[in-house]
């Protein structure tokens, strides 16, 4: 590939890049570097970071455990209403997260469809707990995994599963020993996207799980509330969130994704 890059492409590309990068530059430029260590060591910060990493990871695990079979069903089985199911699965992608939070409250809340029963039968209440944070994050993040894995499954040759069957593999064995390893890069990519989305989740979390330090106050919530009283603290928290995301995405990219 040689030749000059057409201006009609180069200019919008440069503007697009600048648009994406400039806010990060702004964040770095306004960072109070001198008292950064002290601010990072503040107890609330560490607590929020630990909670964020923990819940995003838990949400990713839940998404993989439930999302991969769902993706397999969508990619490999023709059943009536499949298109509708796929539309429903991807709905959280376009739904404002706050709406998702309200919807979760209506299901798992004390007066919700399941919540009332859970409380009366088992004494379990979901809202305002760390579990609620994981549920909210899973709700908004799982579609990323399902879409990614379904794409990988469609790209992978379904006839490998037939070959496995002729060798005596039950459908479950074929899935575990052949299909899953074949789509592993897609699962990894989906899990990374899912994790990143869960880490940044705000709207559904604050609506459904509320905001309490150490229990439901994740990094984005801490950033938002810090902005109310102490913008410098908000910048520090944002910077930390950015650094963690970049570090983990870069690490996983090295390890898992072989995109050139």
């Amino acid at each position: 590939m040689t030749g000059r890059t057409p201006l009609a492409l180069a200019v919008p590309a440069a503007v697009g890049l600048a648009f994406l990068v400039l806010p990060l530059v702004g964040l770095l430029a306004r960072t109070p570097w001198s008292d950064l260590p002290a601010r990072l060591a503040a107890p609330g910060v560490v607590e929020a970071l630990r909670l964020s990493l923990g819940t995003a990871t838990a949400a990713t695990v839940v998404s993989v455990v439930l999302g991969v079979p769902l993706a397999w069903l969508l990619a490999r089985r023709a059943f009536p209403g499949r298109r509708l199911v796929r539309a429903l699965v991807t709905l959280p992608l376009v739904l404002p997260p706050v709406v998702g939070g309200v919807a979760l409250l209506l299901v798992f809340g004390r007066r919700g469809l399941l919540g009332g029963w859970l409380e009366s039968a088992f004494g379990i209440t979901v809202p305002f707990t760390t579990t609620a944070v994981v549920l909210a994050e899973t709700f908004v993040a799982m579609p990323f995994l399902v879409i990614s894995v379904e794409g990988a499954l469609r790209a992978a040759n379904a006839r490998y599963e037939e070959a496995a069957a002729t060798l005596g593999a039950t459908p479950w064995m074929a899935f575990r020993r052949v299909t899953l390893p074949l789509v592993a890069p897609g699962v990894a990519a989906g899990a990374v996207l899912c994790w990143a989305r869960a880490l940044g989740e705000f709207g559904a979390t604050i609506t459904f799980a509320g905001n309490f330090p150490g229990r439901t106050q994740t990094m984005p919530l801490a950033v938002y509330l810090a902005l109310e009283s102490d913008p410098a603290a908000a910048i520090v928290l944002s910077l930390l969130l950015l650094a963690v995301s970049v570090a983990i995405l870069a690490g996983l990219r090295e390890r898992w994704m072989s995109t050139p």
Partner: protein
Amino acid sequence: MKRSTVLGALALVLVASGCGGQSRPSSAAPGGTVTVLAAASLTESFTQLGKDFERANPGTHVTFSFGGSSTLAQQITAGAPADVFASASPANMKQVTDAGLAAGEPYTFARNQLVIAVAKGNPKRITGLADLTGPDVKVALCARAVPCGAATTKALDAAAVKLTPVTLEQDVKAALSKVRLGEVDAALVYRTDARAAAADVDGVEFPESAKAVNDYPIVALTKGSNPTGATAFVAYVRSQPAAAVLAGAGFQRP
């Protein structure tokens, strides 16, 4: 500064010509669009005041942006185009006056007190702050960083009550909505908010709220595009008819 005056004059001319022959306004009469940034707890009462003001001053139009006072104050200092700022806390107002963006001294036009918002009919029989400490009572409070949270902290300190809420909400309306949805049994909110949601919640008054009165200051802003309209709107908020609307919403007179 110069440009905004020119724009204001231009708006006046446009409005005057739009009005045709009838009720020729004097040069001091307001017109054009007045942009008001107001605290979320003023949503219902200010919407009403805006309509009344428009009726009293034909040709003017009031647009509101309601939000957390601290957010609004930040927007103003960051250069948001606005004519009037009505805050739920003097602290947030101070951010604006310190930045030299207020035209004149802020005026305290209303006061608000906290009440305990409970589900309609008060099923948990809550009569005061002490009742909120029970293990089976779930409480939502405002986060300390926002005005209603600051007031809550003062009231709880005055009552010497230690509360562990299930959530610290980012603004008073969010705390109230948790009660309306039935997810918590009680929330400390402004009396005005409880009254606005009277269909779903009851407001339980408690004596310590007197120790945590919230002042609502209002001021015209210097960087606005309609200084005449801004001054007129602030004057209207201080008027007798406006006081009646505010009292009806549950505010106290300062």
